[in-house]
C-alpha cells in the first residue's frame, strides 16, 4: 500500500504507526467524537442497533485474529461468547464483583474454554477443525443446562440487575452504549497492536504455512493455541457485555447459527484484516436490520400478502444469502479490499489507479 505523498517513516515506530498524518488524526478524533455523541442525536433504534453492532464487532474481531490471521477455522465463537456471558453473570450474581473485574475474567474463562479446542487445532485443520469447533457449541449448550442450577441456573438461566461502575448505573440503552463503545475501542486497539507485533507475525506465518513456520523456529503448538485463546477471550468479553445489556443469559441465545453469521461477516468484510471484521459486522447487521424492516412492509402490501408469507420468508433469506454470495463472487477479498482500492485511488488522483 502506498502512503500519501511526502509521508515517510524515519524510525521503526513511525513505520509501524497506525496513524501517520495530521489529517488521519483529525479523521480519527472526529469519528470518535461522532461515535460517542451518537446517542445525543440518534434515535432509540440507532442506539439499539449500535449496541448490538458494538458487541458483535468485539466477537468478530476475535474471530478474525483466530481465523483470519492464524488461519484456524472456528465455528464455535458463539459458544465462547456464551461462556463469557455465563461467567460474567455468575461472578456478578454469586460474588457481587464489579464489572471491571468480571468482564476481563469472563474473557479469561472463555479463553480457557477456547484454548481446549486450540489444542485440538494442532493436530487437525480445515474441515476437521471446523467440526471440532462445532463440538464447542454442543458442549457449551449441554454443560449450561446440566451443570448445577446454583451455578448457572440450568434452564432458568441467569437474570441480572443493571450493573454500575463507580455509582454510574448502566440501566438505559444510552448509558450501556458508552460502556460497549469504550470496551470495543479498547479491544480493537488491542487487536491492531497484536497483529503488528511479533505474535501477530507468528500467527500469520502459521496461517500461511505451518510447516515452514515450524522450521524457522515458530512454536506452532503455542501460537495455534494462543490464537484460540485470544479469539475466545474477545468472544468472552463480548458475551459479558451481551449479558449486561440484555440482563438475561440463557444457553439458547448462543447458537451455532450465530457462529456461522460471524464467519459470514468475516467473509464479507475481508479475512485477515481488523478493519475488514468491523466493516463486515456493520454491513451484515445493517442488512439484517433492513430485512427486518422490509418484511412487515411487504406483508402490508395486499398483493404480496395475498400471495402468502412464504414469499416474504423465502425472499428475505434469499436476499440476505444472495448479497453474501455476490460479495464472495465479485469481491472475494472482502469489502476492505474495495476500501483500500478507493483509498489508493484517492491518494494518487488524478492519476489513474
Amino acid at each position, binding site marked *: 500500500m502506498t502512503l500519501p505523498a511526502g509521508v515517510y517513516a524515519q524510525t521503526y515506530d513511525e513505520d509501524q504507526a497506525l496513524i501517520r498524518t495530521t489529517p488521519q488524526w483529525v479523521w480519527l478524533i472526529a469519528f470518535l467524537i461522532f461515535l460517542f455523541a451518537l446517542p445525543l442525536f440518534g*434515535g*432509540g*433504534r*440507532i*442506539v*439499539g*442497533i449500535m*449496541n*448490538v453492532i458494538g458487541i*458483535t464487532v468485539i466477537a468478530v474481531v476475535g474471530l478474525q485474529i483466530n481465523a483470519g490471521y492464524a488461519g484456524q477455522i472456528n465455528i464455535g465463537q458463539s459458544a465462547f461468547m456464551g461462556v463469557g456471558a455465563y461467567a460474567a453473570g455468575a461472578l456478578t450474581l454469586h460474588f457481587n464483583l464489579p464489572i471491571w473485574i468480571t468482564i476481563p475474567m469472563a474473557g479469561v474463562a472463555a479463553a480457557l474454554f477456547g484454548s481446549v479446542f486450540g489444542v485440538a487445532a494442532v493436530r487437525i485443520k480445515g474441515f476437521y477443525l471446523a467440526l471440532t469447533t462445532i463440538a464447542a457449541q454442543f458442549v457449551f*449448550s*449441554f454443560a449450561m*443446562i446440566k451443570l448445577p442450577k446454583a451455578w448457572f441456573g*440450568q*434452564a*432458568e*438461566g441467569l*437474570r*441480572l440487575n443493571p450493573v454500575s461502575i463507580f455509582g454510574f448505573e448502566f*440501566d438505559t*440503552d444510552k448509558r450501556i452504549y458508552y460502556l460497549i463503545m469504550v470496551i470495543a475501542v479498547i479491544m480493537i486497539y488491542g487487536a491492531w497492536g497484536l497483529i503488528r507485533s511479533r505474535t501477530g507475525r507468528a500467527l500469520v506465518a502459521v496461517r500461511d504455512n505451518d510447516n515452514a513456520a515450524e522450521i524457522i523456529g515458530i512454536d506452532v503448538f503455542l501460537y495455534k493455541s494462543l490464537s484460540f485463546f485470544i479469539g475466545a477471550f474477545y468472544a468472552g468479553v463480548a458475551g459479558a457485555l451481551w449479558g449486561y*445489556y*440484555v*440482563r*438475561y443469559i*440463557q*444457553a*439458547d*441465545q448462543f447458537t451455532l447459527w*450465530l457462529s456461522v453469521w460471524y464467519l459470514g461477516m468475516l467473509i464479507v468484510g475481508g479475512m485477515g484484516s481488523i478493519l475488514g471484521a468491523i466493516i463486515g459486522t456493520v454491513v451484515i*447487521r445493517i442488512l*439484517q*436490520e433492513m*430485512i*427486518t*424492516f*422490509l*418484511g*412487515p412492509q*411487504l*406483508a*402490508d402490501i395486499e398483493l404480496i*400478502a395475498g400471495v*402468502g*408469507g*412464504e414469499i*416474504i*420468508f423465502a425472499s*428475505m*433469506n434469499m436476499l440476505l444469502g444472495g448479497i453474501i454470495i455476490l460479495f464472495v463472487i465479485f469481491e472475494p477479498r472482502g469489502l476492505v479490499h474495495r476500501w483500500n482500492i478507493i483509498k489508493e485511488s484517492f491518494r494518487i488522483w488524478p492519476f489513474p489507479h
Partner: protein
Amino acid sequence: MKKVFLLIIAALFVLSLTGAPASAEVTKYKVPVISDFSGAYAELFKAWVPMQKAIFAWWNDTTGKQLGVELELKHYDGRYDSTVVASMWPGILAECQPIIALGAGGPDVAALQQRLPQDKVPVVYGTASYGYGWLPNQWLFQVRPTYLQEFMAAFVWYTEQHPEKKPVKLGIMSAQITAALDIVHGFEKYFKEQLEPKGIGAIVAKEFVDISPVDVSSQMKKIIDAKADVVIGPVTTAMSTAYIRACQMYGVNIPTIASPHHTIFPYARAMKTYDPFEGHMVSAAHVSVTDTTSKTYAFFQDLVKNYGLNEKLWNVYTMMALNQSILAVRAVEHAAKKFGPAGLTGEKVYEAILAEPFTHEELMGSLPALYFTKEAPFSTKNLKVMIETVKDGKYVLATPDWVPIPTDIEKW
C-alpha cells in the same frame, strides 16, 4: 325564484343547527407486534398476522369506538432471534411509545423480560408458559399456564378414565433443549412429590432425542420395554413423525399427550390423515378448534364475514394469535374504562390487567376467565384445559367439558 332560493338557504341553516353530533375524539395508540417474517417460525406467523389485524380492527370498530380509543398495530420482524429483538426494542419504544405490545415467543422473552419493568410496557404472549418464566412481578402476560400444567391436566384425566392402569406409567421422550428440559424437570418434581406417593402415576422411562430426529426407534424400544402407558415429549412435527414411525415399526400405539400445535394437527396437515394418532391426546387452556358450536367460532365467523379473515385460518396455530389479541384489546379496554381513553400508559394498562379478572365472555369464550396477579405471568386461578383426541380417524373433543388443571402443581 328569489323567495325559493331564500327558503332553501333558511332550511339548510336550520338543518345545520340540528346536524349530526360532532364525532367523539378518538385517542390513537400504536401497538407494536413482534413477529417473525423471515426467521424460524415465519410459516406460523404468516397465519398470526391476519388474525391479529382482524381482531384489532373489530375492536376498534366496536368497543374502541365507544371508548374513544383506536389501536394501530405495527408489526416488526424479530426473526425469532433475541439479538434482533434486543437491537430493535429501543427503536420500538421511541417510535410507538407503546401502552401494550404483542410478543412472539422465547427470544423476545429473553431479550425483554429483564427490562420491561423499567420500560413499563406490558407484553402479551399467546403460547403456554415455561417453568423458568414462572416468576413474580413480571410485565409479560401469558394467556395460558405452563405446558406442564396443561399436560398434567390431561394425564390426570387419563388416569381417571383408566383406573385399572393406576399407577399410570409415563414415558418421557424429550429433546435436550432448554425449553424441553424445563418441562422434564417439572415432571420429575411433580411425580415425585404428588403423583407417585398417591399411586396415580409413575415415570418409567426418560429418553432423549434430537429436536428434529430422523429416527427414534432405539429410544422407543426402551419406552416400550418399560411398559409405558402414555408418552409425553414429542413437541415438533419431526419428533411426532419419528415417534409414529417407531410405533408402527414395533406394532404398538402408545398414546402421547402434547399441545395442539405439537403433534396431531401439524402431522395431519402434512400427511392428510389423523389415523396414526388414534387415541392420542392434546390439551391446551383454550377452546377446542374442533368445537364449531362455540362462541369463539361464531366470533371467528364474524371476523371472516366483516373483516376479510380467511376461513382456513380457524386452526390450532391461529388460536394462539386469537387468544393473544383478544387479551391485549381487553386489557386496553379495562385500562380505558378505569383511567379514561386519553393519556393511557403502559403502567396504567399493567395496573388494569392486575386489577380485574378477564371474564370468559369478554374473551369471546376462547379462554377460561383469567385472573392475573403479581405471583406469575399467567393466571393462577380457574385453570382448566380442553382435551382433544383422534377417535375413529376424526379429530374431536375427548370430553365436552373443560378439565381442571391439578392445583397441587408448584413451581419447579
